């Protein structure tokens, strides 16, 4: 089962880790750690592959942002602490997260790349760097209201162009 999950989610998982951490060796480490945590803490034997893949992506994002912030402060890394900093989602019997198809994923990537620069930057700073609105406002020297509206408008655009929402 772990192989099926890996084959389903490896590419977006590794891409996400690289996007956040920049360094391939750190990305590999985080991806491996996320799968290890999944294997240790979740009964993967009869679970839904997409659901497990979504858990892996969630763990990778959380772990990678913690690692990124640690890297920014010092070169030291504490993998134990990273593990305690993240939570495995608690699934309910009803809920199943679906991963995007390769085509939908490509569409979303293209839509994100085509967003207005100010909107894409704000969204990426939140999602891939874990910054708050205040930190983004400081970094971009823009009013917080502008950050808020850029994020929301950018997300609405992505919903319309990539996910087909009205």
């Amino acid at each position, binding site marked *: 089962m772990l192989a099926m999950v890996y084959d389903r989610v490896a590419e977006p998982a590794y891409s996400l880790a690289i996007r956040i951490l920049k360094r391939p060796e750190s990305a590999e480490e985080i991806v491996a750690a996320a799968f290890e945590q999944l294997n240790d803490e979740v009964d993967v034997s009869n679970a839904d592959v997409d659901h497990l893949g979504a858990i892996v992506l969630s763990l990778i994002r959380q772990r990678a942002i913690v690692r990124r912030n640690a890297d920014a402060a010092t070169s030291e*890394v504490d993998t134990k602490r990273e593990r305690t900093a993240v939570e495995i989602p608690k699934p309910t019997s009803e809920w199943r997260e679906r991963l995007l198809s390769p085509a939908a994923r490509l569409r979303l990537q293209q839509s994100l790349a085509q967003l207005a620069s100010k909107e894409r930057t704000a969204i990426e700073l939140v999602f891939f760097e874990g910054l708050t609105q205040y930190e983004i406002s400081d970094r971009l020297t823009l009013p917080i209201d502008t950050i808020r509206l850029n994020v929301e408008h950018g997300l609405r655009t992505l919903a319309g162009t990539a996910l087909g929402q009205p």
Partner: protein
Amino acid sequence: MTEPSHHSYDGLAGLYAIGGLNRIDRERFEQHLETCVVCVATVTELLPVARGLSQAAPTQKPPASLRLKIVGAEVASDPRPQRHARISSSGGRLAPMYRVVAVMCLIAAAVIGWYAAQHVTRSRQLRESLDASVLRIQAADHDAVTSRQVARELRARADVLAAPDVATINLQGQEAAPDASGRAFLSRTRGAVLVASNVPPLPPGQIYQVWFVVPPDPIAVGFARVDGAGRIFSTVDPPSDTGIPLAIAVTLEPEGGATDPSDDLLLLGRTDR
């Protein structure tokens, strides 16, 4: 239903959906969500995009060694004949690769050991930095399951609040909760939403149960959760043939619920029926 101060929350729904609010802002916005149909709808609309962002990073092919490191010798999950053939026929040639992986694992173990040693002498700065990171991650709490559950619940509430036939019933605190007050929003077609404040905390082993008072006997229509601040914001789904009740009541009952309401009445509201 949109409160007058909505303007100050403009644009926060997007940041909330992708985890860009700190803990204080997030809690404040979640309180606002309880009364703002506009923001509920926006969050509901944007959550699928937020989910998708974790798959939107520019594509990078993971190295083959990563698969071996994580799943070992398990065959690929897409067992096309040629892949089977390739894997089975190359078993002998892979053996050196396994040795490489084993060495890599030893190196990794040593590195982790080094990290553990460094942990002892970790600087205060790192600790504070990581604490901040942990808090931020927890605040962002971008957990897909939770968000989906929240979205489903918010959507159900929004459906009721936006129903064309929604009626509002004021709920008054009763003997068991004299300071409590609230409102029920009732739609014949879409269910009901209960909102209340100053509700006492639940005693252990008990639950708040919601009743529709209809002749000849009250009907149990669901349960109401109370948060740490004494607030209720719950959706109940009465049977479709219930119609508009004479009154709506909330009582304290044993965990699991009761078939008849007890005398521990917290909230009561009469309809115009």
